[in-house]
C-alpha cells in the first residue's frame, strides 16, 4: 500500500504545484485560500510571496511565466475580481512557464461578503478550469493544470471550495519534477497586446479553446461511473462526493475540467441513462450549458444558495428525511466577536459615541458593526471604505454627523491608497482611520508591506503608513495608541475639524500577536453602580451579573484597561489593587 499523508485541500494544492516544479508562489490571503501559499512557502526550493493584492500577485506571476518558470497564484473568489483585469488579457497572451491560479470559493459565506461562483469567470475569461473533489485530486489536478497550461498556452484556474480547501483527506504524494527554465527571448507579437497583436491572439484564443474542448473529451480525469443507469447524475467537485454518498448505485459523470466542456462525452453519458439530473452548488453553470446542448435534465428542488450535503441530494430525489431530535428553542446565538483586549474595540466605541457615519472595510474589524458596538454603517469590499466615505460626504445624507472610513493596515495596502489619493485630488474632508494592528489578522496573521517581514520570514523594508499618506498629499496625519480612549477621541475630533482630508493611524499590535504583560482588571463591587456603560464595549471578559453589576473574567482579561477608561465611577482597576483594598469580588 502506498504511504498516504493527511493533507487539507489547500496543502494538497501547494504540494501539487511543488511537485510540478513551480518555482514561485504568489497571492493575497483570503479565507478559504490562505493556507495554500503558507504551505508552499514551507517547501524545499519554493519561493513564495504575499503581494499587496491579487492583481499585483497575478502580474508578478505573469512575469514569472513569461520569463519561463512555473508559478502558482492563490486567492479567494473575490480576489479574482481584483485580478480579473490581468486574467482576461493573459488568456490572450498565453504563457511560457505554466501559470495556475488557485481560486477558492466560499459557498455558504462562512467568511466572505458574497458567494460568487468562479466557474463563470473561466467561461468569461476563456480559460480552462479544473475542479477537484478531494485532497488527492487537489494535488493531481494542480499538477496536471501546469501541463495543460503549457501545452495549450493558457493560464489555468484550479477552483476549490471551502469544503475542499478546509477538509483533510489521505493523499499519496509524489516527487518534485525538475522544470528547466529555457533561455528567455522577447516575443513582441505574443506578449505586447497592442490591438494589432491582440486581434491575432484573440483568434488564436478561440482555436486554443477548441483544442482544449477536444482534449477534454478524452481527458482521463473525467470519470463515467456507470452504476444503475435508471438515474444519471452529472456533477463535479465536492458535490460529486455528496452524490456518491447519497446515491451509491447511481450512474455518475464526474467532470474534472469545467471549461471548455466535453459536449460529446456529456451526450454519450446522457444517452446511456434513463433520467438525467445535474447536481451543482451555487450557480446553474453546468445545468444551463447542458440545456444549451439541447439536453433536458430534470429539475431538482435544490437551493441555489449555500452548501449542499448528501442528505439534501437524497431528499431532493425523494428520500425520507431521517428522524432527528428536537432542536432546543431560544438558544442564544454565538456570533464571532472582537477578542478581549482587541485594540479596535475602543475605536468603534468612540466612533459610536461621536455619532459618526462609518464606512467600514474587510477584516476582523468588520465585527465593529455588531452589537453592542453597532459602529459601522456600510461594508462592501476590500478598500471600498475610503471612496465610500467621500461619496457619503457628497450625498449630504449624513447631515451633521462626522463621516469616517475605517480600514485595516493590510486592506489599506491592498486597495486603500488609490481611494485616499482621490480624497486629496477631489478635495474631500472625510477622515480615514487606519487600524494598524501590524498584521493581516482575520486570515490568521499574515505579513504585509507595513509589517517589515515577508512570507518567507525574511526582513523587509517596513513601509511607513504616515509617510505614505503624506506622500499622497494628506496634510493632517496623526498617530494614536487606541487603547488610550481619551487620546483616541481627541485625535478623531482634531482630524474631523481639519478642513482637508485627514488620517488617524490607530497603532497597536493585534492582541493575539503580542503576549500581554499587563495584569487583569477587576470590578470593585461597592463602586459599581450597574450602569452597564462598560458593557457597551462588547468585551467577552466582562459580564453582567443578576444584580446588574459587572464582573471581569480574569482568565480572559488581558489588562487593556479600556473598560476602566469608560467607567465613570472608577469601579474598574487592576485586579491586584482590588485585592489590596480587601475586596472579595
Amino acid at each position, binding site marked *: 500500500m502506498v504511504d498516504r499523508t493527511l493533507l487539507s485541500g489547500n496543502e494538497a494544492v501547494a504540494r501539487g504545484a511543488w511537485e510540478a516544479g513551480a518555482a514561485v508562489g504568489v497571492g493575497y490571503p483570503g479565507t478559504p485560500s490562505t493556507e495554500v501559499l503558507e504551505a508552499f512557502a514551507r517547501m524545499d526550493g519554493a519561493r513564495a510571496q504575499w503581494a499587496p493584492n491579487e492583481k499585483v500577485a497575478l502580474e508578478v506571476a505573469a512575469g514569472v511565466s513569461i520569463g519561463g518558470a512555473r508559478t502558482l497564484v492563490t486567492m479567494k473568489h473575490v480576489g479574482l475580481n481584483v485580478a480579473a483585469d490581468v486574467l482576461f488579457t493573459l488568456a490572450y497572451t498565453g504563457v511560457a512557464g505554466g501559470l495556475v491560479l488557485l481560486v477558492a470559493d466560499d459557498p455558504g459565506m462562512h467568511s466572505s461578503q458574497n458567494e460568487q461562483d468562479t466557474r463563470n469567470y473561466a467561461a468569461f475569461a476563456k480559460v480552462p478550469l479544473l475542479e477537484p473533489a478531494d485532497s488527492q485530486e487537489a494535488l493531481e489536478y494542480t499538477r496536471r493544470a501546469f501541463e495543460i497550461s503549457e501545452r495549450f498556452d493558457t493560464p489555468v484556474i484550479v477552483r476549490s471550495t471551502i469544503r475542499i480547501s478546509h477538509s483533510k483527506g489521505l493523499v499519496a504524494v509524489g516527487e518534485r519534477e525538475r522544470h528547466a527554465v529555457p533561455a528567455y527571448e522577447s516575443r513582441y507579437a505574443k506578449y505586447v497586446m497592442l490591438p494589432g497583436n491582440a486581434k491575432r491572439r484573440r483568434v488564436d484564443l478561440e482555436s486554443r479553446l477548441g483544442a482544449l474542448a477536444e482534449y477534454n473529451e478524452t481527458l482521463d480525469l473525467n470519470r463515467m461511473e456507470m452504476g444503475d443507469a435508471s438515474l444519471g447524475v452529472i456533477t463535479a467537485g465536492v458535490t460529486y462526493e455528496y452524490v456518491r454518498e447519497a446515491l451509491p448505485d447511481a450512474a455518475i459523470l464526474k467532470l474534472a475540467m469545467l471549461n471548455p466542456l466535453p459536449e460529446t462525452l456529456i451526450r454519450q453519458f446522457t444517452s446511456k441513462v434513463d433520467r438525467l439530473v445535474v447536481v451543482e452548488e451555487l450557480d446553474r453553470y453546468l445545468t444551463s450549458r447542458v440545456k444549451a446542448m439541447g439536453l433536458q435534465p430534470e429539475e431538482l428542488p435544490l437551493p441555489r444558495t449555500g452548501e449542499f450535503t448528501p442528505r439534501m441530494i437524497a431528499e431532493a430525489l425523494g428520500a425520507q428525511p431521517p428522524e432527528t431530535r428536537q432542536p432546543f428553542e431560544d438558544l442564544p446565538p454565538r456570533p464571532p466577536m472582537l477578542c478581549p483586549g482587541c485594540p479596535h474595540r475602543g475605536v468603534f466605541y468612540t466612533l459610536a459615541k461621536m455619532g459618526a457615519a462609518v464606512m467600514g472595510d474587510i477584516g476582523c474589524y468588520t*465585527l465593529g458593526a455588531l452589537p453592542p458596538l453597532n459602529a459601522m454603517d456600510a461594508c462592501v469590499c476590500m478598500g471600498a471604505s475610503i471612496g465610500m466615505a467621500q461619496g457619503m460626504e457628497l450625498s449630504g445624507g449624513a447631515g451633521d454627523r462626522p463621516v469616517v472610513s475605517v480600514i485595516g493596515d493590510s486592506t489599506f495596502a491592498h486597495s486603500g491608497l488609490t481611494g485616499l489619493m482621490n480624497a486629496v485630488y477631489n478635495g474631500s474632508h472625510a477622515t480615514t482611520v487606519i487600524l494598524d494592528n501590524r498584521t493581516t489578522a482575520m486570515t490568521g496573521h499574515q505579513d504585509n508591506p507595513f509589517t517589515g517581514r515577508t512570507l518567507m520570514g525574511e526582513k523587509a523594508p517596513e513601509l511607513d503608513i504616515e509617510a505614505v499618506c503624506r506622500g499622497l498629499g494628506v496634510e493632517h496625519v496623526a498617530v494614536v495608541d487606541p487603547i488610550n480612549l481619551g487620546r483616541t477621541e481627541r485625535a478623531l475630533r482634531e482630524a474631523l475639524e481639519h478642513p482637508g482630508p485627514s488620517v488617524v493611524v490607530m497603532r497597536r499590535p493585534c492582541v493575539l500577536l503580542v503576549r500581554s504583560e499587563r495584569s487583569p482588571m477587576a470590578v470593585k463591587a461597592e463602586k459599581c453602580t450597574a450602569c452597564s456603560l462598560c458593557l457597551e464595549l462588547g468585551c467577552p471578559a466582562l459580564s453582567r451579573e443578576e444584580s446588574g453589576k459587572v464582573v471581569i473574567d480574569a482568565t480572559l482579561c488581558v489588562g487593556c484597561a479600556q473598560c476602566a477608561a469608560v467607567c465613570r465611577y472608577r469601579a474598574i482597576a487592576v485586579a491586584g489593587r482590588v485585592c489590596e483594598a480587601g475586596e472579595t469580588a
Partner: protein
Amino acid sequence: MSDVTSVLLVGVGGQGTILAGDVLAKVAAASGMDVKLSEVHGMSQRGGSVDTMVRFGPKVHSPVVSAGQIDHLVAFEVIEAARWLPYLKPGGRLLVDRRTIAPLPVLTGALPRTVGLESALIAEDAVFVEAEPLACRAGSPRSANVVLLGALSVGLPFDAGTWRDVIAARVPPRTVESNLAAFELGRQAASGAA
C-alpha cells in the same frame, strides 16, 4: 453508509476543537482506515461557534453529513451541545464538557442566561466530563480538549497506544506529558461513566 463512523466536535473558537479533530483523523489513518475531516476556519474563530467533523471507515466520500447522522457528538461546552444535538442520530453517543461559555449577547445582558440545559441534555443520555478540572489535574488547563479525546476514545475501535503515539507527535513537545496524562484521565472518566 453504515460502515462509516461520523464524529462531530463542537465548541467555541479557541477551545482546541481543530487540534482534537486532527488527532482523531490521524489515529483513524494510522489504524488503516480511510478518513476525512472537515472544519471551517476564518471569521468563526473569533469566539464564534465552531464545528469539526471527522468521518472514518473503509471508504469515505463526503466530508460532512446532515442532522440525524452523527454517531458521536463531543461538545466542548454546554450551549454548543444543545445547539448541535439535532445532528446526533438516535442512539448516538453524546459527550459534554460540563462548562458553559456565555455568548456575547448573554454577557452584555441583551439575552437571558440559559437555564436547565444540563438536565435537558441528561434526558438525551449525555455523559458529562469535567474536562477542565481533569486537565488541571493532568498539569495544564489547556489540555481539556485531550481529556475529551480520552473520553471519546473509549467508544471508538482504536488502540490506546495509537492514540498516545499520535498525541505525542501532534502536541508541542513540552506538553506531551500533561497531554498524555489528560488523555488517560479522560479515558478513566468515560470508562467510569459507562
